[in-house]
């Protein structure tokens, strides 16, 4: 064998492989089939939400025979990443579900359409002005809230009751909660709750219970490393005592109920938003119940009513009118409301909310009742988080991983987080 050829071949193959390092990927165009207008509509959520959404979309297509809606959904974490890639490639879906955390970044990045210009087909008069205003960025209506949600302690009713530990009640404090999960762990042999240390949302409730906030009005960090150290020490102690889920379980959280310890039958309760809690029903056949979040030690409530999610339209859509029609349908149509129920939180359209409240079935009614039990007891929601928060949510979880795997002390991790957060919010 001519050895030199082998050598040369090696070299050129290696060079080729090197070139592959930086290969990019292209975007895809938008397709219109059979003279119909094709719209893309994406959201995050569980299968229950997907099923109801598909039904509602089918009805929309019946009403608008010239429009065809392609839908897709995924879990929250995956959705967030995918949408960011699509949006920046100029390929955002025509209609997209957005989180409170995303609207600031997306609106200022020019991804979203000014929805006030679609007044002719998209009606917002039935939405509470205060709630509607949460979709404003610099005075422009870039997104419309789709539902109202709040955080909750969702628990496996049967297991909790059987344990003999007193059920959660209105106004319980974080130390009551800690005592309860310790007792639960002792009585049931399972951790009483998912480790809350990883959750920025739970931390926010705890922080608000002490009269502080995640962010200040001007969008910088609203707490110190000391606050976070205290929170992570609190969670760390409970985890070491086996009162909340171990690191191996907690690290599997990805925003879907299927991968929570409660959903996997490995814990008794979980913190979650109220609407997606319906997803636990399929996993815990004996049923789940909702309880208020623990309050600060002096009784200050930390939880709040938050626009659970928004609908926005891509600035690049070729079909602004049809997209706005779809948004209008999802928000204001009686029949759509009946199908969707509370799968995305309690409806924002006042008439629909009043009309459908008595008709709500099963878990939707549970969510509605839960929300009305809190009515008037909660403080105002914080303003929309600054752009950097989108990434910080994952940072929070990751930094706590270092604590739960005992690679860092709560203090070290907290200082890390605060440094990272400050850098993130500055840029």
């Amino acid at each position, binding site marked *: 064998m001519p*050895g030199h050829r082998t050598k040369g071949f090696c070299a050129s193959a290696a060079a080729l492989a090197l070139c592959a390092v930086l290969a*990019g990927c292209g975007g895809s165009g938008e397709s219109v089939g059979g003279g119909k207008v094709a719209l893309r509509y994406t959201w995050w959520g569980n299968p229950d939400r997907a099923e109801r959404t598909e039904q509602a979309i089918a009805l929309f297509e019946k009403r608008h025979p010239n429009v065809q809606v392609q839908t897709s959904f995924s879990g929250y974490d995956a959705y967030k990443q995918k949408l960011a890639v699509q949006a920046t490639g100029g390929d955002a879906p025509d209609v997209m579900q957005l989180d409170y955390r995303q609207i600031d970044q997306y609106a200022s990045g020019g991804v979203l359409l000014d929805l006030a210009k679609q007044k002719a087909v998209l009606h917002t008069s039935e939405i509470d002005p205060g709630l509607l205003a949460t979709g404003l960025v610099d005075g422009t209506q870039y997104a419309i809230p789709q539902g109202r949600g709040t955080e909750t302690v969702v628990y496996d009713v049967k297991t909790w009751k059987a344990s003999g530990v007193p059920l959660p009640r209105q106004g319980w404090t974080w130390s009551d909660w800690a005592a309860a999960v310790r007792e639960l762990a002792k009585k049931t042999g399972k951790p009483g709750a998912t480790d809350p240390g990883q959750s920025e949302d739970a931390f926010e409730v705890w922080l608000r219970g002490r009269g502080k906030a995640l962010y200040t009005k001007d969008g910088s960090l609203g707490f110190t490393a000391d606050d976070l150290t205290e929170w992570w020490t609190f969670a760390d102690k409970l985890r070491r005592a086996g009162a909340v889920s171990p690191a191996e379980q907690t690290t599997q959280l990805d925003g879907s109920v299927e991968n929570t310890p409660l959903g996997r039958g490995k814990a008794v309760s979980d913190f979650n938003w109220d609407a997606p809690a319906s997803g636990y029903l399929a996993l815990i056949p004996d049923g789940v119940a909702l309880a208020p979040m623990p309050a600060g030690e002096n009784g200050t409530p930390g939880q709040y009513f938050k626009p659970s999610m928004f609908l926005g339209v891509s600035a690049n859509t070729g079909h602004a009118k049809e997209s706005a029609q779809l948004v209008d349908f999802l928000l204001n149509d009686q029949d759509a409301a009946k199908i969707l129920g509370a799968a995305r939180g309690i409806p924002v359209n006042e008439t629909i909310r009043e009309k459908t409240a008595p008709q709500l079935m099963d878990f939707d009614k549970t969510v509605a009742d839960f929300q009305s039990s809190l009515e008037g007891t909660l403080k105002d929601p914080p303003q929309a988080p600054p752009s950097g928060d989108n990434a910080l949510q994952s940072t929070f979880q990751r930094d706590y*991983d270092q604590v739960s795997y005992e690679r860092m002390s709560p203090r070290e991790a907290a200082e890390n987080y605060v440094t990272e957060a400050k850098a993130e919010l500055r840029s």
Partner: protein
Amino acid sequence: MTTTDIPAPTARPKRPATAPKRRPKREREGAAWVFLSPWVLGAIVLTLLPMAVSLYLSFTDYNLFDPPRWVGLRNYTQMFTEDPRYWRSVMTTLTYVVIAVPLQLALALAVALALKPMKRGKGFYRSAFYAPSLLGASMSIALVWRAVFNDGGTVDNLLGTGGWVNKPGWALLSVALLTVWQFGAPMVIFLAGLQQIPAELYEAAAVDGAGKWRQFVSVTVPMLSPVLFFNLVLQTIQAFQVFTPAFAVSAGKGGPADSTLVYTMYLYDRGFVASHMGYASAMAWVLLLVIGAVTAVLFRTSRSWVFYASEGDR
């Protein structure tokens, strides 16, 4: 009768002097360019242009939404001096390369050696062992892998491991195993290499009283060294760029506790999760340079251990 047998030169059909009417050089090149154009266009649009853009972006602060802002070398200095996670990802990747590449090559060589003397069913086994290389790169298999090594998964049930993918000390190994399992491509190359080794060498060695091991060390390894080198270079380059298995096994997070945060995962995290495209581009360029350097070093060392038949007398 001396010269008559040979036809006079003039009788020959006239060649170059008249026939050519040489088409101008540019015209002939034009045809070449027409045929080359798909490749050239592809190379420019899909490789060179993105590379140039990425090089530019690596000197900017770019969050994907707002226009890039020139920051000079800041991304690079930040990477090397202020970012502990960057170094963690570098260490993770090096650990991964050191585990995965030798394991994979050893397995590929072992299977190739086992298949070589086989008379029947060779084709079947060859395809069977090659199949994971075709399937393994897919996301679906990676997800299956996660399920297998998760708590409550197959490996947990068999060995009582409690799920490797959730243990920081073990997660990287489950990622590496996914790569090792895809040893088909190097195996086929080894097999081809083995079949090139002349049987006389073995016969001669046997006559000299060499046992199987001795034959392997003194005949197979030196004769196979160019192929071994080729596989080593290729697999090392690939290992530096590992992404899919780490992404799937850690559900896109590089966890638990950053234990599977390989270089490209962190690059992805910076670019697409935290929207720091400039920083991610800078990371990509450093990776390119490092892979280039590592490859160069491998070529250097190869002089002392790779044996080419044509240089046998050296």
